[in-house]
């Protein structure tokens, strides 16, 4: 190839934009294929999955508008997969699966599949899907409960060559499926991931055929430059600052006194952005320990949103953020600490902590604290009507923090997650459960010039005996803070309401509980913080 004096973004910005947009559209198409063919309501109705395209060097080039915690962790997934299977060895029709947080994963339920894309024997890149399987085994149905080591959280899958010559390897698949609940549905979900990868392969090849593989690889490289350029320009336009903030998590589900500390120091200088977590607590017994991939995702998200506007997320952006996270700290989990709640809980608290730090320098650009959680609850058991085992995993929205521009949204997923709820009518038709309330807790948002978003009350009655239940939540103790004089939001509250009328308050993380017919779980998520002093506050 003749070396080009100028890269495609400068030489032919129009073709660049056309091909770059097409790469993003492919990610969206890939996701819709997985959703349509999957077997879990968590995927087809709640969309708990993310898709990305990588270049031939394994760098993330394009991602769908999916789940930030999935997306930010993608570079770690890719690195682990290519450490185990060097890029030069991949053949068409190979597929590598992994879920181990200590080998490129985030938490065990998020199962990644990477497949290469070849065009006329030339490696053009890879597709990556990260799909939340509703169950991957472990001590409780839904694989999102409280335990004290990773082995109890489910089956760990290190990078494995699970597809060869486009065919899944029956032996590996059988081993995995033997270790999960409702294996036939998980098998369907895995097929859906393959179907998504095939669609991505088809589309990328079309691009290669149309524009040439050389041009495609140039666009893939420049797409990263492009995003990085925008982020750096935006950072440059902000005044430099060194700010820090620390907060404690609300327990780890095991030790009633555990209040691990997360401390973040942010240095914004010119077009660089550095976050130092030195001083954070060491790992704790319960599952709130955050793998570095998850912590990094929180930093990437915060950086992208701080930079504001439509910046296509990819490796170019991620390279801007420098992260210091001491090994063994709660923000860089050490083997074999349990980690399942970091993805949904710790990650969102980290964002709130970073934002509280940034608010000291840029109060007009950042929101107040949020409900700081995904509020995951799981239910599982056997439906006597069908004798079929069921597993239910759902997240519950809460209050978003208000901003200088307006009030925080209520009952919504914030920051690192964005999965939808499961329609009550779908859940009740599929499982022996009945919802008794799903409403906004109107007064729970902090008060101020712009009010914080309202939290949510969701309550569920189980209609059969022997149902296993767990809750992973946050902010039962520490309220979401306001910014610029705004008030804090109301805290979260979780309860077990027995069929006999007994009420037992539950901590932020607990389970697995055994529920009997007529028992209820009630979850009230926290409200968001307010922005600004309200006009009738006394000065």
């Amino acid at each position: 190839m003749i070396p080009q004096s100028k890269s495609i973004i400068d030489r032919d910005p129009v073709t660049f934009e056309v091909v770059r947009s097409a790469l993003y559209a492919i990610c969206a198409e890939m996701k819709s294929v997985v959703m349509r063919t999957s077997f879990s309501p968590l995927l087809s109705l709640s969309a708990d999955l993310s898709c990305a395209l990588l270049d031939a060097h394994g760098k993330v080039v394009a991602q769908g508008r999916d789940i930030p915690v999935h997306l930010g962790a993608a570079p770690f997934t890719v690195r682990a997969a290519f450490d185990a299977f060097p890029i030069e060895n991949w053949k068409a029709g190979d597929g590598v699966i992994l879920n181990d947080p200590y080998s490129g994963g985030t938490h065990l339920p998020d199962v990644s599949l990477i497949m290469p894309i070849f065009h006329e024997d030339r490696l053009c890149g890879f597709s990556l899907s990260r799909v939340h399987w509703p169950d991957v085994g472990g001590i409780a149905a839904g694989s999102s409960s409280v335990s004290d080591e990773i082995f109890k959280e489910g089956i760990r899958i290190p990078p494995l060559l699970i597809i060869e010559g486009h065919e899944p390897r029956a032996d590996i698949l059988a081993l995995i499926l033997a270790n999960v609940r409702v294996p036939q549905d998980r098998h369907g979900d895995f097929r859906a991931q393959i179907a998504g990868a095939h669609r991505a392969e088809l589309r990328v090849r079309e691009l290669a055929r149309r524009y040439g593989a050389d041009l495609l690889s140039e666009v893939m490289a420049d797409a990263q430059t492009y995003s990085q350029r925008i982020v750096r320009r935006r950072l440059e336009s902000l005044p430099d600052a060194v700010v820090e903030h620390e907060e404690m998590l609300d327990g780890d589900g095991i030790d009633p006194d555990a209040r691990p500390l997360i401390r973040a120091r942010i240095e914004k200088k010119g077009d660089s952005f550095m976050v130092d977590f030195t001083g954070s607590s060491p790992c704790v017994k319960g599952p709130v320990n955050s793998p570095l991939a998850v912590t990094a995702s929180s930093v990437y998200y915060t950086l992208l949103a701080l930079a504001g506007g439509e910046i296509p997320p990819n490796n170019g952006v991620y390279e801007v953020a420098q992260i210091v996270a001491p090994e063994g700290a709660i923000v860089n989990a050490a083997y074999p600490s349990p980690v399942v709640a970091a993805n949904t809980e710790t990650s969102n608290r980290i964002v709130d902590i970073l934002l509280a730090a940034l608010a000291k320098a840029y109060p007009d650009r950042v929101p107040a604290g949020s409900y700081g959680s995904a509020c995951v609850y799981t239910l599982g058991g056997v439906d006597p009507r069908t004798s079929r085992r069921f597993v239910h995993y759902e997240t519950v929205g809460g209050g978003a923090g208000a901003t200088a521009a307006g009030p925080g949204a209520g009952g919504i997923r914030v920051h690192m997650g964005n999965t939808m709820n499961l329609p009550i009518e779908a859940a009740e038709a599929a499982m022996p459960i009945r919802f008794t309330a799903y409403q906004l807790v109107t007064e729970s948002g902090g008060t101020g010039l712009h009010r914080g978003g309202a939290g949510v009350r969701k309550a569920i009655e189980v209609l059969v005996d022997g149902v296993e239940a767990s809750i992973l939540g946050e902010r039962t103790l520490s309220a979401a803070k306001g910014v610029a004089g705004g008030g804090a939001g109301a805290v979260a509250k979780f309860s077990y309401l027995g069929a006999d009328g007994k009420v037992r308050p539950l901590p932020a993380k607990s389970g697995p509980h055994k529920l009997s017919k007529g028992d209820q779980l009630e979850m009230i998520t926290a409200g968001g913080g307010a922005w600004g002093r309200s006009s009738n506050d006394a000065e």
Partner: protein
Amino acid sequence: MGDLLIGIDVGGTFTDAIVFDSGNGSLLAAFKVPSSTGEPGKAVVDAIEKIAQSVTIKDAVVCHGTTVGTNTLIERRGSRTALLSTAGFSDVVALRRQDRPILYSFDVRISEPLAPKELRFDIPERVAADGSVVRPLETSGIVEKLRDAGVEAVAISFLHSYVNDAHERALAAEIEDALPGVFVTRSGDVCPEFREYERSSTTLVNAYLGQTVGKYVSKLNLDLRSRGIQRLMIVKSNGGLTSPENASRYPVHLIESGPAAQLTAAAAFARATGRPNLVAFDMGGTTAKAGVIRNGQPEMVSEFYADRLVDGREVGGYAIRSAVLDLVEIGAGGGSIAWINEAHVLKVGPRSAGAVPGPACYSRGGSLPTVTDAHAVIGTLTAELFANSGVRFNREYAVEAVREHIANPLGWTVDRAAYAIIDIAVANMAEMVRLATTQRGLDPRDFALLASGGAGPLHAAAVGAEIGASEVIVPPYPGMFSALGATLGTIRHEVTQTLLRNLRDLDEADLSSGFAQLAKRVDVILSAEAAGHARPRFERILEARFVGQLFELRVPAGNGDDALPSPEQVERTFRGLYLREHGFELPDAQVQLVNLRLIATIDLGHSGDRIFVRHDPATRAPDPLRMVKILARDGGEATIPVYAAGDAAGGTITGPSIIEHAGATVWLHAGQSARIESNGQVVVTLSGGLQ
């Protein structure tokens, strides 16, 4: 002469009317009258009176695509509306699906529920998923609350009402009795499908629009009837026509009325000219739309989100479960503004200069460069086109805008900048066409591109080349496609019923009794259509999926007179369809039925063949109308011919050239050639890429 068939489309600036003799399908008139601000019905009456000046309108049928529903929603001018929900669940419309519409932003805005908190009431009642009553309905006090709140409309949406709607019915009857004049609508009637947010949202939108749309439609109906018009028919989002009565009862089905009519016209064009696969491509001042016609039929979807873009920002919008012709819409029109982002990359849209100030070259004070300005700079739009339009066209303003905002900052020449703006706009529209095709598993190379709308023909040849379309066609009356399409619709109603059962647990009696119930429901709706039409045709659809999946495929189950397929046959058909769609199927998984759907259609007997099919092809060597100087990509000047399509019937024109066609402009590029047919349509044959 037979009775008249009149199509009317009310736009922001003009109201289009097109008049056919329904006896032989011949076109009698096509014209525009100015729209009347705030009173869309007036322009309709104006148009009818104008028609009455030359022909008798007695017993005419008026088919009308209306944006009254959409505008009422977008401008939040609907009724004061209450929502009555199962106790504990009255926030479902505010909680939505809990996801946010934008990811990497702190300032998330979400469409506010159309019924505010103080008008959302908890009603004690509960039905389980199997339809059994868990808690009986208690209605005491609700009528007083509604009366005290002064509501004009009421939506009722209870959990699982798609299985058992007895509670909804009882409460609706009580309110209707007690509060005459209040518009009452319930989810089991509007949208008896599972998923509480989507069903409640649909019902609430229906309630919110009920009074406004009802008043508009019934007043217009009276106005027209008093002038001797036999019947008014309204275009629904599915492209079908309905009576004023049904339109008033289900205004939520009219949200995409105007665009649907356009796709109906495109489908009729496809059938009339023997081109089964078309992409209907429309570009106006602020937006562009693409919709797919396959095998002569428009693609249909059953859910969409209304009003989800506010000032170019995603805010979620309102879920509507309703059969809608499938359209992809983007913010790219002639008025879209070109700008440079932080990475020094040229962008076009989604911001638009709108009608005011409009493109710089319109001399209305606009100073930002738009797509229209880029054409003015190049010379593909010239002053001649704007004669008698009220626009004072000035190329210099366009040159200045492009120079200052694009060319100088990028260090480019003005002509390079102008071509780049058009290239980006074309790329955006090509991406939109890909969304409408490749994202749905279709290859755009199997489609011809049919261009309509003010700016559609100008870009069609370039967009067509970019997506690799087989040919590009500019049909007769490209600027009046909505009005034309209104007259081409059939009366079409779809009713659905959820029947969530594994196929293996079903027998034929379950299917036949399910369809019998649907037939009863559709009969009630059809009885509200005026008599005198042809007999309805019934089409049965089963929506099925593998157990555990949540997306259904539509399995055809024959027409009204056919025997119902057995559950085994349905399963075989489903598996075949699934394999075709996804490339694999799951032999071990059971197939589950989700919905029965019955579609009733009544033909009005108008096909559009007379205007779309060309007759007696003449052969004339076309003479150019004039020559025009345009800027070339390399900055040089080129002189190219401008033809009038009307003068060139039967001839072939080669690019580069410009063809003026029924008020629109077609830009033919080098290497392209176009055939002009005797009915005025321009067919561009594409040979390779653009030069």
